[in-house]
Structures are given as C-alpha cells and as structure tokens.
C-alpha cells in the first residue's frame, strides 16, 4: 500500500511541474508585451520608464529559466506577488474568496450524493421501467441544462414568487458571512447556487451509479445470493452497493475538484464573491499575475484531489494496489 501511495505521490510532482510550465508559458505567449498591453491598453503613450519598472517588477527582464525557477519557488512558498489590477497581495484576494467557494463546493457535493445514490440505485434496480426512464431523463436534463441558466431560472422564480407572495421581490444576499456567525443568512445565500450546481453534479453521479450497479447486479455472486433466497433489498445493501460505489466515489471526487475554481459562471449569476468570479475578473482586466496564480491553484487542487481519490480507491479495492 505504501509503495502505491509513494508511486502516486511521485507521479503528482511532474504533473504539477508540467502544469506550472504550461501556466508560465501562457503568460509569456501573450502577443505583444504584457506590460505594454497592460499600461497602454493598445493605444496611447506611456513613459518607457514606467514600462521598464513594470517589467522589472514582474521579473520579465531576467532569462526565462530564472523566471520559471523563481515562479516555482515563489509558488511553493505561497508568495504569489501582487495583483496587477487591485495592487493587493494575491494571497489576500484569494484567501477572501476561498472560504465561500469551499462551502459551496461541499454543499453541492452533499446535494449530489444525497440525490445521486438513491436515484441511481432505484433506476438500476427497476431498469427499463418508467421509473428508470424518468430518472434517466432527469439526469440527462441535468447534464444538458447549462447550470447558469438553471441559476437564472432559480433567481427568476425567486423574484416572481416572492413578489406575488410577499409583495416585494427578494434576491439572495451578496455579502458573505461565515456559516458559524449567522447560519440562516449564510444558508439563504449559498443554498441556491449549491442546488443549481448540485443538480448537474448529481446527474453525472446518478448515471455512474446506475451503470455501475447494473454491472454489479449481473455478477455471479449476486446471482448466488438471489439463489440462496436473500431478499433484493439486502442483496443490494450488503453486496451490490459497496462494489458499485467504487467508480462513483471516483467521479464524485473528480467533480469536487472541478467545483473549486470551475464554478465560474454560476458565481457570476448569483453574484457570489468566489474564486470563479475572481478568475473571470482577472481575465477581463488582463491581470496576468492573478490569472496565473488562479489557474495554477485550480490545477493543483485538481491534481491533489485526484491523488486522494486514487488512494481511497486503492484502499477500498485491494486489487488496485497490486497492479
């Protein structure tokens, strides 16, 4: 087991380094000079000294190798530099939003798990009946519907309903308050994006649960259990579900990694001050230092989460360890 963990850990490092190289190259690939673009916005005149100052601040006047090494070294020490747009240290900016993104990610994951596993199980057990079709339609709708459109619909629904019931329209609040300070306020803000995202998330997980369970139910040991006279419910609970949940765990883990920075559009819709919104803002404002750090952050979370999922997978299924 330890050998497996070690191997996976070692594999993580070149992937992260490669991702860092990719991100590093991205910044340097911008047609035209970053500093000129930033300061003149394409037209106008800027004092060459200001451009030189900008370049030396960003470290662009040194050789590429030195720049890359500095980038990696800074990243490892959590020294991300300053945002080109707000001028504040990037660590501060990211730290502010990290909590909110994490909370929504966790809530969406919980929603997905609570929805997907029961629905997927029912759909697999009652395959090809109308229940199966309804659940499959439900999950395909979840994948097809753009999550931001679902968010727009939710807000629309909220506005129209509250207007007709309470007389004045109500929208979820914008200012973030941690959940242990004011739970109701916090929940009123986070439940809707969590639901909108969780629905899509659960759709993927439902399909996975369904197909995994279908496969397991065809296995010989299930047939033996049925021949022994074990009732269906017990078969599923004791034998089938555990084995079927393996790929589902993988999917849930991978999707969770995506939720951390990938909720770009949902956060825009619900006006949440999260990592996704920060990312869009940094792209719109040509804030290359911030974009660089955020992309790297998302990639790191992705790689680390995959690593954790791999470990859990190996722990649950001993056959994997000895491959």
């Amino acid at each position: 087991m330890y050998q497996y963990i070690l191997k996976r850990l070692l594999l993580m490092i070149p992937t992260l380094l490669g991702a860092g190289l990719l991100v590093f190259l991205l910044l340097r690939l911008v047609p035209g000079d970053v500093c000129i673009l930033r300061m003149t916005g394409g037209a106008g005149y800027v004092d060459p000294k200001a451009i030189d100052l900008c370049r030396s601040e960003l470290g662009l006047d040194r050789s590429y190798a030195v720049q890359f090494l500095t980038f990696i070294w800074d990243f490892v020490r959590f020294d991300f530099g300053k945002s080109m747009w707000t001028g504040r240290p990037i660590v501060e900016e990211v730290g502010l939003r990290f909590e909110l993104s994490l909370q929504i990610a966790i809530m969406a994951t919980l929603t997905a798990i609570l929805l997907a596993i029961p629905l997927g199980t029912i759909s697999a057990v009652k395959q090809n009946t109308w229940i199966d079709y309804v659940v499959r339609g439900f999950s395909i709708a979840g994948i097809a519907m753009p999550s931001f459109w679902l968010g727009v619909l939710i807000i629309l629904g909220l506005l129209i309903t509250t207007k007709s019931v309470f007389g004045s329209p109500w929208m979820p609040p914008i200012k973030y308050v941690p959940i242990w300070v004011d739970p109701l306020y916090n929940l009123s803000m986070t439940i809707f994006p969590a639901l909108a995202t969780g629905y899509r998330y659960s759709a993927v997980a439902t399909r996975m649960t369904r197909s995994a369970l279908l496969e397991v139910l065809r296995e010989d040991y299930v047939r033996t259990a049925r021949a022994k006279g074990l009732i269906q419910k017990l078969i599923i609970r004791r034998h089938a579900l555990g084995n079927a949940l393996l790929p589902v765990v993988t999917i849930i883990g991978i999707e969770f990694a995506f939720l951390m920075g990938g909720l770009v559009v949902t956060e825009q819709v619900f006006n949440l001050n999260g990592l996704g919104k920060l990312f869009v803002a940094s792209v719109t404002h040509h804030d290359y230092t911030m974009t660089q750090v955020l992309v790297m952050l998302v990639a790191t979370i992705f790689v680390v989460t995959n690593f954790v999922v791999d470990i859990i997978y190996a722990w649950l299924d001993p056959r994997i360890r000895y491959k």
Partner: protein
Amino acid sequence: MTIATDLDTRGELTDERKEPSRLSAIGRFARRNPLGAAGGVVIIVMVLVAVFADFIAPYNPVANAFDRMHEPPGLENWLGTDQYGRDVFSRIVYGARTALLVGFASSFVGATFGLVLGVASAYFSGKIDLILQRIIDIFMAFPLIIMALAVIAIFGTGAQNVIIAITIPFIPRCARVVRSSALAIRELPYIDAARANGFSHTRIILRHMVPNVMAPFLIMITAFVGQAILLEASLSYLGLGVQEPTPAWGLMLQGGAEEYAESAPWIAIFPGIAISLAVFGFSLFGDALRDEFDPRLRSL
C-alpha cells in the same frame, strides 16, 4: 446490390433478396433507441434551422427597433423582443448558426487532433506513449472552462478565438479515449503482419488502426459538440465569447439575465431552452450511438 428477381409470369414477386438498406438500418436504430432517435431529430431540426435561417427568421436579428423594446411574446414577435427591440425568435434562429458553427468546428478539429495523438501514442507505445500521456495528464488537470478562459485571456475574445479556446482542451480528452481503444487494436496480429510486410508507420496508423477506433471517435464527437455548445454559451454569458451584436444564445442570456428578469423574463427563458434542447439532443443521440456500437462502453 439488389438481386431482385422480377415478377414472374403470374405477376407475383418471387425470390426477392434485398440487402438491408440504409433506410431500414435507421428504422431499426430508431425503434431500439427511441430517445436517441428523438435526439437525432432535434439535431436535424437544428441543422436545418441554422442552414435556412434566412428563410425562417421573420426579422433581422441585429436590427434595433427602439419603438418595440421589451415586447412580450405575441403575434408580431413570436417570442417577444429584447432590450434593443430585436426579435427574440429571429435571434434564436440565427443563434443556432453560431452555436453549430462553433460546436462543430471545435469538436471536429479537437477530435481529429486528439485522434491522431491518441492512436500515435498507442501505436508507438514505450517512451513516446509515456511522455504523451504525461502531457495529456497535464492538460487534463485544468477544467474545460478554466483552460478556455486562459486561452481567451491570451488571444482575446471573438468567435474565432472561442473556437480555438474550446478546441484546445478537447484534444487531450479525445486522445485519452481513443488511446484506450487503440491499445486494444494494437495487440491484434494483423498489425504485426502489416509491419512484417514492410508497411510504413503512417500507412498502418491511417489504414489499419484509425478505421477501427471510428466508433468511440464518432461517439466522442457527438458528445463534444454538445459540450462545445454549452461552453460557448458559458463564455458568451461571461462576455468573453462572441461579442455583440452577433446573435448567440449565451450572449442573449447575458443581456437578459438580471436586469430584465422581472419585467421581461422571456429574454432569458427562451435562449436557455434552446441551449438545453441542443445539448439534450446531442447527448441523447451520442448515448444511443454508444449503446448501438459498443455496449461495453455503456458507462456514463
């Protein structure tokens, strides 16, 4: 080839053997996968609407009409007008063009590059395979939208850059799927036989391996088109995709979302329905294709 022995002397058909025609193959597919057939119909309708947009749309999609802003759906404007007085229905019809253009272009280009990469990686195996796999892993570490946004950050906005931005993250995903299919084929004896015959690598890859991975490849393309349409809509919604006044479904959502949500909800509802329908159609069709071609792939 139709070997149909004609009417005999009594005027009855005798000994008629026909090879199952393409049409009946489609019929059988439709009967076995009703959902997939429905998806296929949606796709065909969408393509027709996009091609014949000029004839279907009653109004000019980019013509502002400030005397008719925020009109609810009615006889004049079937789906209402948006905040500039443009007819929503016409914009949706022309929006199908943008969506399909971006979807197909990025999907095909991305999948083709992915196909070449995946098959080459599987065929050459060894060190080349290992290195290519690492590179693909690195690209896969970035979620679709993050990668697309990063590309937009470099190259700027606009339809062309959106296509590039969507193509790039697709390539490694396609390569990975194709590679797993190609790996199975590589072990078959006739590949060795071809090599022993002295066929060049290119010839073996193109003529022997590629045709055999066509099934998962086509399935991926259909899945990709759906995802590409979704991604393009997301990018446009953020204002970082195609720009005004090009009619695009995501762009229509951006304009209509918050400000006019109460007063003119139709601006936001109908483009969303269009996007959902399109992605729905492609997903269902792709699923059915997968079930037909290879039940073993029936995972997601």
